[in-house]
């Protein structure tokens, strides 16, 4: 599916902010010079075609009381798949990537408190094949803004 100029305009707008009001799509339609029905139908099609990862609410986890960390693992190359799968089993692990470099598996962990975080990290550190682990905590998030301007 090829994106039309209108699709790109719509996707750019949708990545910004959905209005918080009773008829958000009517408001967006007025801004884009079309009507509510067409906007809703097109978003459904774009979603079905796989262009949208998610449409909805993005929370600031720290402000909901959750604690987060980035974790880097050095895993012996033969054990990467089982370790990655073991990490994936935790609902608290939200992103998990195999990467080039000495530390070859990187994941993010979000938990309701630090004790729970420590328990999970201890379990993962003890998995066969895990040779080293770095816990990389953030104090300051300078930017969180996943937007791809389409033109």
């Amino acid at each position, binding site marked *: 599916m090829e994106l039309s100029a209108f699709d790109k305009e719509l996707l750019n707008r949708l990545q910004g902010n*959905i209005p918080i009001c009773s008829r958000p799509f*009517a408001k967006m339609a007025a801004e884009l010079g079309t009507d509510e029905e067409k906007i809703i139908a097109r978003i459904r099609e774009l979603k079905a075609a796989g262009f*949208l*990862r998610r449409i909805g609410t993005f929370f*600031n986890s720290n402000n*909901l009381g959750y604690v987060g960390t980035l974790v880097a693992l050095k895993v012996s190359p033969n054990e990467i798949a089982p370790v990655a799968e073991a990490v994936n089993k935790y609902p608290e692990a939200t992103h998990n*990537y195999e990467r080039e470099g000495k530390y070859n598996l990187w994941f993010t962990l979000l938990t309701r408190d630090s004790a729970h975080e420590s328990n999970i990290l201890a379990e993962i550190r003890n998995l066969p094949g895990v040779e080293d682990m*770095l816990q*990389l905590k953030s104090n300051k998030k300078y930017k969180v803004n996943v937007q791809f301007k389409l033109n």
Partner: protein
Amino acid sequence: MCNSNLTEQDKEIIKALQEDFPLCEEPYKVLAARAGVTEEEFLQRVQDFVQEKKIRKMGAVLRHREVGFKFNALCAWEVPKEKLDEVAKIMSNHPAVSHCYDRNTAPNWNYNLYTMIHAKTREECDSIILELSRLTGVENYQVLYSKKEWKKTSMKYFKD
């Protein structure tokens, strides 16, 4: 940790909000019904959450591979402590940078600033990293290209 400023009703509202946004004329009314509150109350709480920065945004995130941004790299930078804010600001201003966080260092791992960079080709990604290095004067860094995405999900809050 303290979630004490969130009521049980707030948690129901958050649980409703974290599911897919309904694609219909009155989406908030649908979510309000799931949370067991009126549409008016629901809209008011959503506005409050945005004000309190509990909600970062209401909106969409694209599947970046499908829209042509096929390459992503996590780049770890070693920045002198006193220059951290200044460097982070320059990097954050670059449109190809989606995330920019400071992080603690570890033994034999002196990188203290992390950026996520998205580009259409690996060459473009490399040239953005060189540009960021030139703009900030930071010369020690590691580019951590992704080899495989094992998991990418959104957190479900207050599920247990």
